C-alpha cells in the first residue's frame, strides 16, 4: 500500500538485529511478569510442586541405584589353577587377565590368605580346624569386574574368554546369585520407569493446563497485539520467554525445597529409623540430575506456553 500522504516519519528501530530484538522480548517478558505477578506466582508454584514430586522420585531411584551398585560389587569371578604355578607364571597370567576386556581388578589369594578367610568364617568354631594345615586350600585369583560387565550375559561371556587362557582350572562366579541379582535390577528399573512415567503424565498435564489458564486470562493481550499489526513471532516471544523463566524458577525452587526436605530428613530420621541415614551412604541428586531438573522445568514452561499460544492465537 502506497500513500503520498505525509505519514509520521518512522524513526530508527531500537530492536533491530537479533540481539536487539531478543533484548526487547526479554524486557517485555520481565515487564509482563511484574504486571502479572499473581498469575506468574501460580504458574511457578505449580511447576515447583510438580517438579518436586519428580525430584523426590528421582532421589529415591538414585539411592536405590546406588544401593544396587554397591551390591553389584559382589559380582566377582574366582579362578583356580589346574596345577601349582611358578611365581613367574602367576605374574604372567595375572597380567593377561588384567588386559582382558571387563577386568577391573585382579587380586592374588595365597593359601595363607584363603585359610585366614576360612577361619574367619568359622569364627567361634575354630577348634574344628585343629590339625588342618593352610596348604590344603588352593591358591586363586579374585577378579572384580567393571560396572558394565556385571550382567549375567556379560559375566558368562567374560568367563568363556577367561577359560581360553592357559593354566586356568576351575572358575566360580556364583551364576545363580548373579542371575537373581540381575533380574532384581531389571525389575526395579522397570518399576521405576513405570512409576516415573505415570508421575510425568499428570505433571505435564497439570503444568500445561495451568499455563493455558494463565494465557487464557491474558487473551485480550494476544488479540490487541494482533490487531495493531504484531507478527505472530512478536506476540509469542515474550510469552515463550516468560514460560521459560517460569520453568527455570520452578526447577530451581523445587531443587531448593528438595535440599530442605533432604536435610530435614537427615537430621530427624534418627527419631523414627533404626539406622542412621547420614552414615548409611544416602546420597543427594548428582549435579547432572539437578541440571536436568531445571532444564525439564524450562522445557515444561516453554512447551506449555507454546501449545497454549497455538491454541489461542488460532482464533485471531
Amino acid at each position, binding site marked *: *500500500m*502506497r*500513500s503520498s*500522504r*505525509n*505519514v*509520521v516519519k*518512522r*524513526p*530508527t*528501530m*531500537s*530492536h*533491530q538485529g537479533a540481539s536487539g530484538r531478543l533484548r*526487547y522480548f526479554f524486557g*517485555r517478558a520481565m515487564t509482563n511478569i511484574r*504486571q*502479572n505477578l499473581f498469575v506468574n506466582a501460580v504458574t511457578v508454584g505449580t511447576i515447583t510442586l510438580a517438579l518436586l514430586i519428580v525430584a523426590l522420585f528421582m532421589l529415591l531411584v538414585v539411592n536405590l541405584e546406588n544401593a544396587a551398585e554397591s551390591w553389584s560389587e559382589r559380582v566377582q569371578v574366582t579362578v583356580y589353577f589346574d596345577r601349582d604355578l611358578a611365581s613367574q607364571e602367576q605374574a604372567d597370567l595375572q597380567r593377561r587377565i588384567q588386559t582382558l576386556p571387563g577386568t577391573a581388578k585382579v587380586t592374588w589369594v595365597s593359601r595363607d590368605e584363603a585359610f585366614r578367610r576360612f577361619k574367619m568364617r568359622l569364627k567361634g568354631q575354630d577348634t574344628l580346624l585343629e590339625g588342618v594345615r593352610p596348604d590344603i586350600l588352593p591358591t586363586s585369583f579374585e577378579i572384580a569386574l567393571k560396572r558394565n560387565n556385571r550382567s549375567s550375559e556379560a559375566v558368562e561371556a567374560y568367563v568363556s574368554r577367561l577359560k581360553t587362557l592357559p593354566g586356568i582350572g576351575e572358575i566360580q562366579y556364583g551364576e545363580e546369585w548373579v542371575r537373581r541379582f540381575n533380574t532384581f535390577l531389571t525389575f526395579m528399573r522397570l518399576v521405576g520407569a513405570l512409576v516415573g512415567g505415570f508421575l510425568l503424565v499428570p505433571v505435564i498435564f497439570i503444568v500445561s493446563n495451568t499455563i493455558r489458564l494463565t494465557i487464557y486470562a491474558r487473551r*485480550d*493481550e494476544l*488479540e*490487541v*497485539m*494482533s*490487531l*495493531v*499489526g*504484531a*507478527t*505472530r513471532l*512478536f506476540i509469542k516471544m515474550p510469552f515463550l520467554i516468560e514460560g521459560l523463566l517460569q520453568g527455570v524458577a520452578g526447577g530451581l525452587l523445587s531443587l531448593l525445597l528438595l535440599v530442605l526436605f533432604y536435610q530435614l530428613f537427615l537430621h530427624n530420621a534418627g527419631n523414627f529409623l533404626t539406622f542412621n541415614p547420614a552414615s548409611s551412604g544416602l546420597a543427594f541428586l548428582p549435579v547432572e540430575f539437578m541440571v536436568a531438573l531445571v532444564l525439564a522445568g524450562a522445557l515444561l514452561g516453554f512447551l506449555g506456553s507454546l501449545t497454549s499460544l497455538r491454541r489461542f492465537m488460532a482464533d*485471531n
Partner: protein
Amino acid sequence: MIQFHAVSLAYQQDATALQNISCRVTKGEFVFLTGPSGAGKTTMLRLIYGALTPTRGQVLIDGQNISRYRRSQLPLLRRSIGVVFQDFKLLQNRTVFENVAITLEVLGWDRGDIGRRVMHILRQMGMESKIHLIPQRLSGGEQQRVALARALVNSPKILLADEPTGNLDDANKQQIMNIFKEANVKGTTVVVATHDRRLIEHAHYRTIRLLGGELAGHEGVGDAVIP
C-alpha cells in the same frame, strides 16, 4: 482505497452475515456504515482489517485483494489500519501510556521516539495528565480517547471505528467526532460503523446503509455502490 466486490459471508451454512455487498470508499473519505443491530456493520469492518475472510467475493485495499492474504501478510496490512472498538479493548493491566505505546512497539520504534510520539497524541486527546493510570480508573469517554490514541498514534491510512460513541454522553460524542474529523482532514480515510442517527445527521458525510446483511442504499456524495 477500500473496495468490496460482490462480498458474501456466511458464519455457518444457514447463517449469512453479508450478502453480495459491492461498495467503494475512496482515499481520504469519511464514511458512515449504518443499519440496525445485526445488519452486518461489524462484519464489514472485520473484513477490512482481515479478521474475517469472505465466503464469496473480494475485499480490496489499495487494489490488493486482502481476502487472499496469507496469515503472515496480515500484520503489515493492520499496521496501516487503526481500529477502535465499542468495548475499547484496552489492556487492563497496562497504563494509558503503555496501551498507546504498544502500536509503536510493534513497529519497532526507538523507545525515546515512542515516548515523544505517545505524549504528543495523548496531549491532543487531552489525556496527558492520566498517562500513569490503568484503564479501570478512567471514564468511558476517556477510555475511548485512549483507544483512539492507540489507533491513531502511527498515523494510519485507514481508521475504522465500531460504534465508537455507543456508551458516551453528548459532550464526549462530540469530542470523539472532532478527533475523527481531525484525522480525516489530515488525510486518514475514516469508516465509522454506527446506528446513532443523530451522529450521522450532524456530520453530513456519506452513509452506507445495511439491512439484514445486504446493502440497503447510500446517502450523500460519492459512489457507494458498484452495480
